[in-house]
């Protein structure tokens, strides 16, 4: 049986996550429990949401360097306005989503490199966050806290949330007729345009959706941490890009996989945990993170070889 490239794009990340998980369970059997899994994965939820947001941008061949500061910004809004005056908070977040959509339009209409525009925006979001919370603080809205710490039966919240995110975005991006257009713009914008679609509209929608998932990421993050600061999620820019790639996505050509992206985010989080279970001298702990990333990706190559995909290229 020949596997389609889409299936392979999903199998390989899933397999590397499984291998890593087995290794973690082996080293720390205590992790193999309801609370254990929750502790391992609950901080992956906001990362997964940010990764999905990044993936939507990468689907239309762009790259968002402002994802980290944007999530920090939405986290600050969540911990301040959304908590104290929800109506105003919702308005601000809607404005942020609209700003994303606008960014998508401007980038296309003026043919600008997305990297530079989002780089500029990263300063803007960062500045707004610093203005809102000059020093760390704020408070998570009760419902966000409740949502992120609730304990559903049998399966911990972190896993439930990851699955829900993966399935919903898969339906949205891979199965819906609208998702096809987003990926089509990434694959060949010209032919989408020739088929009578408004490419600018599709891109605005993709950016707007990305903004929406960025907002969700900020809310989820504050729900977990209970408070925010202006630098809280700076790392999400790189993490989200790495998550998309780890999940089998590519920088150009609209080749993405939402399930893969969520798995990628989980893998990155798990790789960090794996490290703290190994007792390494503090000098080398940072380096070990790099080594783990390399091993996980080398695993990908191994699995790739097994699938004999190399021959097709």
């Amino acid at each position, binding site marked *: 049986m020949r596997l389609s490239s889409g299936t392979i794009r999903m199998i390989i990340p899933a397999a590397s996550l499984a291998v890593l998980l087995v290794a973690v369970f082996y080293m720390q059997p*205590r992790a193999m429990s309801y609370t254990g899994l929750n502790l391992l994965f609950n901080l992956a939820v906001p990362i997964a949401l940010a990764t999905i947001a990044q993936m939507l941008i990468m689907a239309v061949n762009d790259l968002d360097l402002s994802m980290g500061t944007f999530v920090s910004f939405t986290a600050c809004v969540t911990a301040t306005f959304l908590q104290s005056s929800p109506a105003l908070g919702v308005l601000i977040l809607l404005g942020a989503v609209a700003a994303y959509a606008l960014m998508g339009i401007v980038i296309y209409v003026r043919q600008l490199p997305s990297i530079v525009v989002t780089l500029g925006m990263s300063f803007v979001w960062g500045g707004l966050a610093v203005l809102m919370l000059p020093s*760390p603080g704020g408070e998570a809205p009760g419902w966000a806290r409740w949502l992120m710490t609730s304990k559903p039966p049998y399966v911990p919240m972190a896993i439930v949330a990851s699955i829900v995110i993966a399935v919903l975005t898969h339906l949205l991006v891979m199965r819906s007729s609208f998702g096809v257009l987003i990926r089509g713009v990434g694959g060949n914008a010209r032919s989408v345009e020739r088929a009578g679609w408004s490419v600018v509209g599709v891109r605005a929608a993709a950016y707007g959706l990305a903004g929406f998932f960025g907002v969700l990421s900020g809310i989820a993050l504050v729900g*977990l941490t209970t*408070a925010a600061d202006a630098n809280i999620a700076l790392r999400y820019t790189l993490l989200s890009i790495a998550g998309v790639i780890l999940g089998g996505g590519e920088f150009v050509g609209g080749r993405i996989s939402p399930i893969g992206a969520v798995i990628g985010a989980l893998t990155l989080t798990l790789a960090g945990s794996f490290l*703290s279970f190994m007792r390494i001298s503090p000098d080398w*702990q*940072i380096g070990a993170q790099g080594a783990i990333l390399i091993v996980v990706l080398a695993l990908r190559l191994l699995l790739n070889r097994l699938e004999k995909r190399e021959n097709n290229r």
Partner: protein
Amino acid sequence: ETADKKIALSNNYAGNSWRQAMLTSWDKITKEAVSNGVVAAADAFTTAENQATEQAAQIQNLILQGYDAIVINAASPTALNGAVKEACDAGMVVVSFDGIVTEPCAWRIAVDFKAMGESQIEYLAKKMPEGGNLLEVRGLAGVSVDDEIHAGIQAGVEKNPQFKIVGSVNGDWAQDVAQRAVAGILPSLPEIKAVVTQGGDGYGAAQAFAAANRPIPTIVMGNREDELLWWKQQKDANGYETMSVSIAPGVSTLAFWVAQQILDGKDVKKDLVVPFLRIDQDNLEANLEKTEKGGVANVEYSLEDAQKVIGAAM
């Protein structure tokens, strides 16, 4: 009796000399404690990136590993509260120091950063009663320590209106960033009488003044060896006067002992205060001698010191 207890250090950043000194002190004191059978283990964990989210994940992993106590130098006073709460719920003792957390279940070994800022102005007011223009080098925007020291400096200036802050830059507590920022604003500034800083940035500021051929003002230092050495050279050459103030990296060892005492069943108040380490014109040489080449002026704590600090707070 804590011989079978395990303590972990959760550290969010290892990328500067202060943090390295902190880790070294921790290593030195805890190794001794472990070999003496005071505690079973005292492992240090560092995250790759200075990020609250990453540290929160690290704390959650430490919970899974079943430590009895976690000593935290936190990336954010609030963003770790979720993870800290989970640790407390799992029955662990959480002690935060330097970068403290606000979660009520945790202990805090705090330095009064605001007072640290204020003390700089007080010193300057004494040294130059006529006042003058100040340049403020701040830390990383959005971080609480930066905000607190800045608040202290501002309070000091309000009390001493003869001083005026004519310029303010962010030096991110790094010599090269401070140098870059100061060099950029310096050409536009009038005569500067003194530079107030946050630590780790005084030498960079001095370099920038020297490069711009401006008279060197009184620069408040931050206890780094290169700063002290520069101060010493200036002092020997032209009688340069200033002060140096910072939190001692060895406070990690105090936190260790506090955690040990709590595990031992001692009643310890949730909020402890440690003095900051201040170096003045007269004790400069003595401190410089004690400081490792390229390191930071340091004080390490013993069990007795810790008990004194605990007792004082009672």
